[in-house]
């Protein structure tokens, strides 16, 4: 609808007078309770970017006359509400002070004006409609108009406008242009007060500028100024300005300041006639916003999450025009053509909607909205038949990671001789497209060390080096991979990778206090579960399901006896128990409980889905198409277990490792043992006493009693704790939180999954039939959704993480973020192919290892000859295309474990309670020797996992500090690492032990053999002639210098310090 049409339809609601093409259209003022507008309004305020020319034939001149439009009316509110967004053109403002440049003063539109007439006041006995800032003796400043003829020095006719400054407040009338064009201003300030001598006069200004900033004023451009003094030649302060270019939103200010000659206080209340007529020639109308393009998205952004499909607060649905017109509990939301009768507009203007804490509509948005209503709320679509606003569009679903992976056909490549696996085809294709190829295969010794470090996190032992060297039959390498995958230490390596993503820690609190450890007792069972699951190659869909919902898979609460499977399923939910949980402190309440949920969401979304959801907690995600609603839908899956209104403190969230019935049984048994031991103990005491008193020979009795007690005690049975998660309490409805704030619950929400990964509206979490009776089944439903074979993210994320650990960089280099702001895959087809292949092969990680490690791509050398390399570097300096394998530094645990392997001191005992650490005041945390003397040399995965204070040696090599979890470790090379390798007690001691081992292994005192052994133990290879010579010379010189060092120990330590030792070849 065009401007003229709605004008003709009576779209303009205020007391407006238009001079339009010479014709005057006047309409009755419609007073609106609670929302009065000071001055006339041209229907159609605007913003520059919104304006576009209307057809020339109707574009002429428009006029606004101040005098005809000031309408202080009974029953109306203060005119000073913020109305810049309104299509108002006249604004009443004031500034403090009457000195200094007007623009730099403090501006007010603070709503403190009062309607003079309502107080029964008049001005000089004459009835006046006016607004005033201050009542009483100092009646100033004010603006209004006389309702009857009046003489206050000059003669006023009924309806003429009068303004007055105060002694310290300038009165400012602002005119805001709703249109673009050439502006003509014509008018007069006429001072009209004869009293008070020379202290009664005004300075007046006509200025233009942007809308005033209430703090900083504005940069003024003076158009006209002067002094008006009753009864003098200057009384008529006339102005007439032409041809001023004006754009929508520009302001013109009419300002009256009280002036004085200096002989006294400036007089206030200098009544001044203001005549002001604004004419815009060649006016260009701003465009009315399109419902589809502007209005619907605007409402979807600000309103629809509460007044939409999921919830209709106040029974209002703002998704459709029909819904707006039909309205809710408070009547229609909008009235066509009448913004100020529109309830929606009133609430938005009053700042009541969106509710406190939410993002307010900007001035521009409010203006667009009102203009659209004013224009009759035109919609391009039939208002009754508007589909619900989708918060996620089909375009959003096109992002690569949101489409299901598909098994691409293998491309054609030239270098077929290097193709050992489909992996190679995809990699070669991209290399060949850029004129590159794969590097040649790495040496066997390097391959052995690489695959051993990759799969076990340990360098190969001299025995396995020998065995691999000896196996010259075809398929030796594949057999090696099989052997490594079957090795029990494989799970310790790959379990640790998953523990990073899960944020595994043995503590439950923030862990800020170095000296105190708050244990999550029995958490280690989850660590052992991860290791065992990897060793057993538990299919990942199963592994994920157990971790998210193991407690919903088995009827643990009903079973008399728990099988290992039942225990395992409960232990698996420890995945959800790594989150920091401070709620054991009495000061913490619902807020912190939500924080636990939020942290849990971070872990789950980044580790399993490769997405960061946390942005959507407070507002719809800025980068990814994840509406705020999705965040809470997803969170609702966990709320029955982490029920903020029926909360368990973290130390109460454990199950015993046996069923309730078994616990009773075991407790009873132990109790009876205790009582029998007690009886025997008494007998023992008296036997010993009589032996002491030499009353009888009771030695035999004492021995027998002691044996009986020991035997009885040995029959005692124990159980420990499982840190598990299960649904607790009675279900309470899940709600969205406004702005993510715990104390602002809004609409109830149905648990479900991401809309962008659903076709159409987001899927809801429906309770699976096989969910344990008594549990909500929400997490199980989530697990089932995540492990669908065609889920776009799950398999891709796992495959990418495995690739990351094998190559040092994932196909997506941001393993925790597959969203729009994450990295794009370097080999998207390969990623898809691997994901599909992974699922087709039963979600088997060991299958995936074979796929990757048997490829030529993996078997490449990590270096090339210089000419080749220069060529490749010119094309791909970061080796993203894999023209060689990356040289990777071994991770923290691998550094420590490798040192222990070299010295022969690694204690391979698996599982159990963590090896303790202590952190003395100097911060050098270290291993606390346990009851077993060898326990200090267990694998690093078994050391106590703290959030903030890991073993200092590991921390230096980038073992993660775990506020939440870690999807990608950094790889740093710091001086502190070099210092630790040179001077730490650990490395120095192990080097000395390694030297002893070398001496034992080497033939007699053969120095060359010793050097060879030192190389085998540390670098898994033989030294070459140059190295042998250098080392031999070193040993000779060192001995000759009589430095008192163990020369061979020094040699061993230096080998442990080499770059070669620290890098996967």
């Amino acid at each position, binding site marked *: 609808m065009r401007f003229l049409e709605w004008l003709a339809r009576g779209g303009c609601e205020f007391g407006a007078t238009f001079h339009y093409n010479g014709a005057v259209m006047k309409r009755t003022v419609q007073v609106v309770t609670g929302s009065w507008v000071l001055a006339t309004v041209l229907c159609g305020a605007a913003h520059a970017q919104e304006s576009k020319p209307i057809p020339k034939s109707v574009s002429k001149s428009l006029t606004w006359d101040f005098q005809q439009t000031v309408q202080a009316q009974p029953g109306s509110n203060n005119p000073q509400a913020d109305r810049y967004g309104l299509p108002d053109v006249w604004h009443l403002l004031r500034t403090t002070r009457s000195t200094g440049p007007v623009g730099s003063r403090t501006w007010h539109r603070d709503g403190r004006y009062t309607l003079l007439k309502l107080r029964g006041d008049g001005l000089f006995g004459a009835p006046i409609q006016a607004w005033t800032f201050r009542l009483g003796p100092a009646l100033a400043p004010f603006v209004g108009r006389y309702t009857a003829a009046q003489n206050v020095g000059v003669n006023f006719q009924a309806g003429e406008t009068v303004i007055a400054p105060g002694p310290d407040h300038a009165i400012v009338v602002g005119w805001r242009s709703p249109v673009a064009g050439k502006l003509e201003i014509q008018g007069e300030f006429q001072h009209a007060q004869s009293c008070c001598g020379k202290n009664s006069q005004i300075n007046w200004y006509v200025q233009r500028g942007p809308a005033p900033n209430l703090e900083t004023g504005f940069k003024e451009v003076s158009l006209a100024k002067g002094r008006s003094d009753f009864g003098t030649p200057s009384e008529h302060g006339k102005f007439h300005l032409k041809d001023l270019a004006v754009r929508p939103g520009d302001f013109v200010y009419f300002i009256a300041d009280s002036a004085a000659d200096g002989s006294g206080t400036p007089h206030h209340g200098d009544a001044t006639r203001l005549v002001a007529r604004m004419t815009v020639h060649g006016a260009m109308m701003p465009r009315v916003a399109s419902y589809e393009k502007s209005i619907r998205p605007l409402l979807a952004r600000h309103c629809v999450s509460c007044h939409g499909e999921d919830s209709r607060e106040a029974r209002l649905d703002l998704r459709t025009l029909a819904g707006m017109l039909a309205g809710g509990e408070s009547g229609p939301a909008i009235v066509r053509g009448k913004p100020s009768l529109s309830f929606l507009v009133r609430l938005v203007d009053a700042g009541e909607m969106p509710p406190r804490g939410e993002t307010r509509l900007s001035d521009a948005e409010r203006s667009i909205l009102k203009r659209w209503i004013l224009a009759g709320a035109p919609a391009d679509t039939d208002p009754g038949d508007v589909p619900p606003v989708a918060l996620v569009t089909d375009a959003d679903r096109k992002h690569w990671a949101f489409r299901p992976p598909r098994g691409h056909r293998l491309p054609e490549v030239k270098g077929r001789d290097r193709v050992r696996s489909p992996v190679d085809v995809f990699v070669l294709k991209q290399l060949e497209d850029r004129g590159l190829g794969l590097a040649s295969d790495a040496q066997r010794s390097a391959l052995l060390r690489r695959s051993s470090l990759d799969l076990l996190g340990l360098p190969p032992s001299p025995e396995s080096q020998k065995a691999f060297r000896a196996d010259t039959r075809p398929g030796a390498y594949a057999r090696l991979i099989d052997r490594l995958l079957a090795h029990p230490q494989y799970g310790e390596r790959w379990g640790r990778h998953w523990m990073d993503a899960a944020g595994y820690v043995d503590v439950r609190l923030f862990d*800020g206090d*170095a000296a105190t450890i708050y244990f999550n007792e029995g958490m280690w069972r989850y660590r052992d579960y991860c290791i065992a699951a990897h060793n057993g190659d538990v299919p990942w869909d199963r592994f994920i399901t157990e971790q998210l919902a193991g407690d919903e898979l088995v009827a643990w609460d009903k079973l008399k006896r728990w099988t290992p499977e039942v225990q395992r399923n409960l232990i698996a939910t420890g995945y959800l128990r790594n989150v920091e949980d401070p709620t054991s402190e009495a000061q913490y309440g619902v807020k912190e409980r939500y924080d636990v949920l939020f942290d849990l969401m971070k872990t789950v979304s980044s580790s399993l889905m490769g997405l960061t959801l946390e942005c959507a907690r407070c507002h719809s995600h800025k980068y990814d198409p994840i509406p705020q609603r999705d965040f809470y839908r997803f969170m609702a899956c966990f709320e029955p277990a982490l029920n903020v209104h029926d909360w368990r403190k973290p130390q109460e969230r454990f199950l015993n490792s046996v069923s309730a019935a078994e616990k009773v049984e075991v407790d009873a048994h132990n109790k009876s043992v205790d009582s029998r031991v007690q009886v025997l103990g008494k007998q023992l005491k008296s036997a010993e006493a009589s032996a002491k008193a030499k009353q009888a020979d009771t030695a035999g009795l004492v021995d027998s009693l002691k044996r009986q007690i020991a035997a009885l005690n040995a029959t005692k049975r124990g159980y420990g704790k499982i840190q598990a998660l299960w649904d607790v309490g009675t279900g309470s409805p899940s709600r969205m939180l406004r702005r993510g704030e715990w104390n602002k619950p809004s609409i109830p929400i149905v648990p479900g999954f991401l809309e962008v990964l659903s076709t159409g509206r987001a899927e809801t979490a429906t309770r699976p039939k096989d969910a344990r009776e008594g549990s909500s089944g929400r997490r199980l439903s989530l697990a089932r959704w995540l492990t669908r074979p065609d889920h776009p993210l799950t398999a891709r994320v796992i495959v990418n993480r495995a690739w990351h650990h094998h190559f040092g960089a994932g196909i997506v280099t941001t393993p*925790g973020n597959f969203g729009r702001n994450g990295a794009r895959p370097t080999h998207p087809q390969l990623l898809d192919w691997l994901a599909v292949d992974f699922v087709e092969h039963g979600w088997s990680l060991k299958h995936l290892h074979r796929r990757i490690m048997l490829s030529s791509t993996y078997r490449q050398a990590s270096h090339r000859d210089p000419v080749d390399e220069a060529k490749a570097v010119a094309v791909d300096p970061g080796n993203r295309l894999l023209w060689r394998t990356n*040289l990777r530094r071994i991770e923290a645990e691998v550094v420590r474990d490798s040192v222990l392997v070299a010295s022969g001191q690694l204690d391979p005992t698996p599982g159990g309670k963590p090896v303790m650490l202590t952190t003395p005041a100097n911060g050098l945390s270290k291993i606390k020797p346990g009851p077993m003397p060898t326990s200090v040399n267990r694998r690093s995965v078994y050391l106590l996992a703290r959030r*903030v204070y890991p073993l200092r040696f590991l921390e230096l090599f980038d073992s993660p500090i775990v*506020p939440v979890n870690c999807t990608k470790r950094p790889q740093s090379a710091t001086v502190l*690492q070099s210092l630790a390798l040179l001077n730490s007690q650990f490395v120095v001691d192990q080097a000395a032990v390694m030297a002893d081992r070398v001496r034992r292994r080497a033939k007699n005192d053969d120095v060359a053999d010793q050097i060879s052994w030192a190389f085998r133990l540390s670098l898994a290879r033989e030294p070459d002639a140059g190295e042998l010579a250098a080392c031999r010379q070193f040993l000779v010189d060192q001995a000759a210098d009589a430095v008192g060092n163990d020369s061979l120990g020094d040699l061993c330590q230096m080998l442990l310090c080499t770059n070669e030792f620290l890098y996967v070849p």
Partner: protein
Amino acid sequence: MDPTVSGTISSSGGQQFPATRRRMLAEAGAGFGTLALAGLLQRDGLLAANEEPSDLLPRPGHARPRARAVIQLFQNGGPSQMDLFDEKPELTRQHGKVPSREIETFQLDNNNVLLKSPYNFYEAGECGMRLGELIPHVSSIADEICLVRSMHTGHNNHPFAINMMQTGKTFAGRPAMGSWICYGLGTERDDLPGYVVLRSPKGYNTSGKMVWSSGWLPAVYQGTEFNSSGDVVHYLSSRPGTKASGRRRALDLLAKLNRRHQELYPRESELEARIQNYELAARMQVAASGALDLKQESKATRAAYGLDNPVTAAYGARVLMARRLVEAGVRFVQVFPPVSPSSQPWDNHNNLPRDLPNICRQTDQPSAALVKDLKRRGLLDDVMVMWTGEFGRLPISEAKDGRDHNRNAFSLWMAGGGFRAGHVHGGTDDFGYAAVEDRVSVADLHATVLHQLGLDHRRLTYRHSGRPERLTDPEVTGARVVDELLA
């Protein structure tokens, strides 16, 4: 280790190190700074080089800096503003009465009655700012400091508020301000870290190492703990009995083996960095030990920092070390208060009349001495001193005579670095409960500190997991540079 070990060595190939190590390192993309390398860490875009630095080479900020270094005297626990910096006569008048407004408390044993300050306030300096009697030394530098009385923060418990003060957010895991600054500007020295932490040798303060974590910024920007007693840096000294010549020979062998290995990987700058690091380790031993050697200070200086007094000696030593470190070119030094009686010594929940004077006695003189000393040496223009806790305390009484946490108002002071001297900014309500006048948020403070160092808080970004992150997150916090604090 014998300092002579750290001399220039020739590698196995007979290749001499360039005359200026710094330059060579810069050319090789190495240095103390190359401790983590862009090439390997940041490969987000396919084939694209990353533009974000991950080294400590000095680089210009966004604008001409007003200050080049920062010493943060971190006073964790929550110093009581109404007993130290923010005199409240109305609180005294209404002592014992129920406050007229609701007070947000943290602990459960608060009494909802107003508690006056037991301390007198006096005019200090030419500027006449009124300060409490417990900090006479800080009063003596009143004309040098910019006192902000209108700070407020996001959480009323320690770990969260400490995260806020350090990283701009209440949750853990983001980079500390010092890390951001080193990321933005690098550092002048290649043998000292850019960000040094000096804590009590008796233990960690609340939140421990998380306070100087570099979060997801490269590890090179992490705060490095220097010990004010014992080994300056962890693992700095070699095993007792190690003979220097033997160690030298071992290092030469190591260099030889590494060079042979490196021939295969001429472009792996990380390998080069590691080779350099063994030499830098030795240089660092000298540089760090020298920077922390307080014997080089005059008797008068040592006395000024209170080193001759057992009450002030330990904290005074750390503060004096901080001055020596910034003098030596360290960019950001963070000094922590004593850890006894608790790891948050300003946390006076009860018996404030006993504990507050106690911690003031330990910290007041050295803090003031630092500002005087910097001024005397002409360093106060270049070096910014921040005296700040993580939040303030409540005007009502907890237990009998203590005060609970308050996130709505606290006071801190800044000195040097272009901050307005002898200036008081902002104000609280009648009871010191909430900042009401010219409020300054923690994000505002961060923006202002960065600004003085020549860094624009809106432009200092680092891409993390695909998002351009900032210390101040201005779109959410509305952080602004508080010009009113600046000279």
